[in-house]
Every structure is written in C-alpha cells, then in structure tokens.
C-alpha cells in the first residue's frame, strides 16, 4: 500500500499452502489469521474466565456454573478475522494494488511465475521484488505427526473443542496456547525437551513456568515424542503419544484428545525459486541474510519479516521495515529500520513484557560488574480482594553502570504487561536512565508504578 502511494504499479501474491489437515486462510499473513490476532482473542477469553471467578469475590452473584463453549468463541474469532481479510482486500483495491491469490516463484531474472489454486499459471516481470513469505510450523518428523497432530495453523479455527491436549514445545507459541487452553478449562500438559522460552530472560521464563504449573498446567520435562498413534477416531478422537527421555532411555506413554505441535517455525524460502535468481539463503535455517536496508545479495530483491536472518520475528517490525524500505526507494527518505529496543510481550496467563536485553545477554555483553539489576515483586490491587497470588508479579530493569545507569533491559511479569511495556519502550528509545526513571512519579494504584 505504501508503494502504491508513490504511484508504483504493485502486485501482491499471497497464497496459503493448506496444512496437512487441509486448513487454509485469507489475506493478511500469519499474524492476522493464525497468530497474534486469534491468539490474543483466545487469551482474552481465558482471562475473562478468570475474571468471572474473581467477580464473585467483588460481590457479583450468579449461581449457575460457568461453562465455556469452544465453537462460540471460535466462530466469533474467525468472523473477526474474516472482516480483517476483507478489509485488506478493499484497502488494496482502493489503492489500485493488484492482488492475486496465487503461489509465486522466481523462474528467471526479474520474472515470477504464479500458480493459483486451480493450477492456472501466469508470468509477471517487475523492476523490484519484496519477499515476505514468513514461516510455517515445523513438524517433528515422527510417525503420526502430520496425520494426527495439529499446529497453531489449525488450532484457531478447529471446528471442535480440542479436549485433553498435549502441547509439544516450550516456545512462546507453545506456552501461550497451553495457557489459554487451560484457562478455558481444558486439561493441558506441556512436553518440553529442555528449557522454556529459549532466547528470553530465563529468570522470567522460569517464573512463567512456575505460575502456569501452579495454575493447573502439567509439565513433562526433558521428554520428546517419538510416535503418535490414533486409538479412536473422532472430533476430537483419542491419540496415544509415546515419548522418550531427552537424557536417557526412559519411555513414557500418554493418551490425549489433541496433540498440538509448537516446536518452531521454518521459513518459506525453499520452494520459491530463489536459486534461479541467485538469492543466497542460509542453507541450514532457510533464513535470508540482508543488509541494513533489507536488501538481499541480489540488488533488486528485498526481504522483510520473519524470514530475515538475525532479526526479531514480530509483525510490527516487519511492517515498519516494509514502510521505511518503500519510502527509501521511492520517496527519497533515508531512515533505516531500528531493530534495537523493540518491545515484545508474551501472552501467557501471567503476561510478560520485555524490551531490550535479558539479564543473561546483558551480562554477556557488558560484564556482570558493569550492570545493575533492580527488581521487585508486587501484588496488583485487583488481585487482593479475590485472594490471588501475592508474590507472582514481578518487574526488573537492567542498567548499564558505565553509561549513566542507562536502562538497557526492561522486564515485567503482570496483567496487561503489553500495555505497560509500550510506554517504557518509548522511554528506553529516548535513552532513559535509572535516575530519570526514579524521578518519574508513579500512577497509583496501578502495576506500572513499580
């Protein structure tokens, strides 16, 4: 849309290869269809369940038991996503951007071939190309994985309640899904090969795991599934999972209605003809290395989003990179995308917002003696009356002593962590120091005043 503003003739190719179970979706990419949007809505559904429980302590009286209907929630979520898909179609059309629901691949210099779902092929040429093909969930490569397991691609539109679920993985996707499924009242177990939330501050990752465990999510640590079999067909059916210890030879088995795989995502860069135009990718990971102007090794081909090597996999990052890139190309702008101090939030039952360095990364980069960590547990006022945990919420900042105690890492574990973190991220972008933070008077009574 940005390029069309500058009167460029633009063609968008968006095509979703159906999941092994046949699932597909509309225009908008992962975030809109099978990521952030449905995830946050379902996380909210789970939070509301908790709120209903708290409500009684605040004086609301209702006698019936409160139950959750998966289909009602899923239909509403999918309806909303449908309106987003439609909105994008209208927006592209209004800006005269041509859209084709077709699979694109390079066949030669400056040329792509598109194939739609009916198999009809077309050829297009262009002056420049932008690759933003994103990623898809990885499968385990064990017997029964593609036939019986689902991934996040299937979860948000599952036409039946998943029931007793085994979530395989310890990524934020795994924990967020496990979190809201448990919040909706389902029996959830998470099978983890080693650590939780690799790449995130481990001190916080462990607190998140503890909180989830105390609130009904079961964890099986240091095991990996080796086989999935179907015991009974159905929606959902019954699956038997056999797992082996990651550290020895112990074998265990379990039965679940649904097995959700969330062990990582792989870039969609292998089958789009990049070799035909000479674009180098990291053979091992499939990621695309780019310079700080998002340009690949082929000058007229650019890339943004999750497929980039060594860059954060977040929707707003991709959007920002894309907009700035187009402005640089067609409007004479010079700003490059700033990948430093990008705030993020993990929407586990107890939300985690972060910006900047984790404690481990800060120690590694600056040395333990050069950083100072300030931290605090706190008890949100809203949790006091319903007697919810009084020592779980937590905030910490990491400061660089050598640079005026500049705040280089911000971490908060609390309700609405995303909302809290956004403001602090802006402050960190301005180079906030500990002293400035101390001099900022807090809003009371809110979690953020800590």
């Amino acid at each position, binding site marked *: 849309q940005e390029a069309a503003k500058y009167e460029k003739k633009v063609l968008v190719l968006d095509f979703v290869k159906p999941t092994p179970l046949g699932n597909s979706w509309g225009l908008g990419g992962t975030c809109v269809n099978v990521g952030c949007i449905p995830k946050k809505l379902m996380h909210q559904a789970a939070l509301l369940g908790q709120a209903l429980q708290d409500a009684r302590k605040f004086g609301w009286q209702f006698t019936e038991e409160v139950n959750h209907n998966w289909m009602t929630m899923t239909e509403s979520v999918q*309806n*909303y996503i*449908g*309106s987003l898909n*439609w909105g994008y*179609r*209208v927006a592209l*059309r*209004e800006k005269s951007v041509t859209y084709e*629901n077709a699979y694109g691949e390079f066949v030669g210099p400056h040329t792509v071939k598109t194939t739609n779902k009916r198999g009809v092929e077309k050829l297009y040429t262009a002056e420049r190309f932008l690759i933003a093909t994103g990623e898809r969930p990885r499968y385990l490569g064990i017997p029964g994985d593609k036939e019986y397991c689902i991934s996040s691609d299937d979860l948000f539109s599952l036409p039946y309640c998943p029931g007793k679920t085994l979530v395989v993985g310890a990524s934020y996707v795994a924990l967020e899904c496990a979190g809201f499924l448990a919040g909706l009242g389902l029996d959830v177990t998470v099978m983890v090969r080693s650590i939780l939330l690799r790449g995130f501050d481990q001190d916080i990752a462990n607190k998140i795991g503890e909180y989830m465990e105390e609130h009904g999510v079961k964890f099986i640590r240091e095991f990996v599934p080796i086989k999935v079999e179907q015991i009974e067909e159905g929606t959902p059916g019954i699956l038997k999972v056999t797992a082996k210890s990651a550290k020895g030879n112990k074998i265990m088995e379990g039965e679940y209605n649904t097995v959700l795989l969330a062990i990582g995502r792989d870039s969609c860069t292998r089958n789009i003809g990049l070799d035909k135009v000479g674009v180098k990718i990291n053979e091992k990971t499939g990621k695309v290395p780019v310079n700080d102007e998002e340009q690949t090794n082929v000058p007229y081909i650019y890339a943004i989003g999750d497929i980039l090597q060594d860059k954060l996999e977040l929707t707003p990052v991709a959007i920002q990179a894309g907009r700035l890139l187009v402005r640089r190309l067609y409007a004479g702008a010079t700003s490059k995308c700033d990948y430093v101090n990008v705030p993020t939030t993990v929407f586990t039952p107890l939300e985690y917002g972060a910006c900047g360095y984790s404690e481990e990364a800060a120690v590694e980069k600056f040395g333990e003696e050069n950083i100072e960590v300030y931290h605090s547990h706190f008890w949100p006022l809203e949790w006091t009356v319903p007697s919810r945990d009084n020592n779980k919420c937590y905030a910490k900042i990491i400061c660089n002593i050598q640079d005026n105690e500049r705040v280089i890492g911000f971490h908060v574990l609390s309700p609405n962590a995303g909302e809290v973190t956004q403001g602090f991220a802006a402050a960190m972008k301005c180079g906030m120091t500990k002293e400035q933070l101390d001099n900022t008077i807090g809003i009371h009574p809110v979690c953020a005043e800590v």
Partner: protein
Amino acid sequence: MGWEEKQVRGYSEFVRTAQSYHGRPIFALFCGDKDAEGRSWCPDCVTAEPVVRKELHNMPDGSVFIYCLVGDRAYWKDPNNEFRKNLKLTGVPTLLKYGTPQKLVEEECYKAELVRMLFTED
C-alpha cells in the same frame, strides 16, 4: 440460472426474506426510503444504486439480490433502530454479502471495482 431480485421494506420483511432464501448466496443493498418521485433522502444511496445495479450480473449463479429500504431519515438516525442493533449496519448505503463479514459502506458502494469484488469474491 442467473439471479433474482427481491424488494423489501423494513427490518422484519428483510429478515423473513433472507431466511426464506437460506442456502443461496444473498447480497443486500440497504438504502434510505424514496419519496413520491422515487428519490432517496440519502444522497450516497442515489449515487450508489445505479453503480450496484450495473454490477449485478457478476453475482454467482443462483444468487438473490435483496434491495431493502430501511426507513425514513428519522428512523435511520435513531441509534437503536433494528438495522443498527441486529445487523450492525453503521451507515447507508451498505452493500453486504449476507452471513459473511464482507461488506461495503457509504462511498465504497459507488466504486464499481469494489462492488464487483464483493460479488465475485470467493
């Protein structure tokens, strides 16, 4: 087989008609009432109607096009009218594909390309 048109007035007649065609693709255009000379009080509706009519042949076979007059201006302005409350309409004209989140509102309705897209979208 082509398509057919039904003209209705008011919310209950609209719902009854839409339900009677359950199973077929239903497109609906909501406009303000017309006076004795056939002119609507809603200027955008006046502009949109011919544009929409010109694109009707793009609807899939077997479609039903419901042309619905919502009422007079006063009724429409009431924030609690049934169209706003139940169908979540926010303005007239509105052209929508019944039972889906796909719709066009106000000035979107007189852009032929958008209308065509609504009628032909999968």
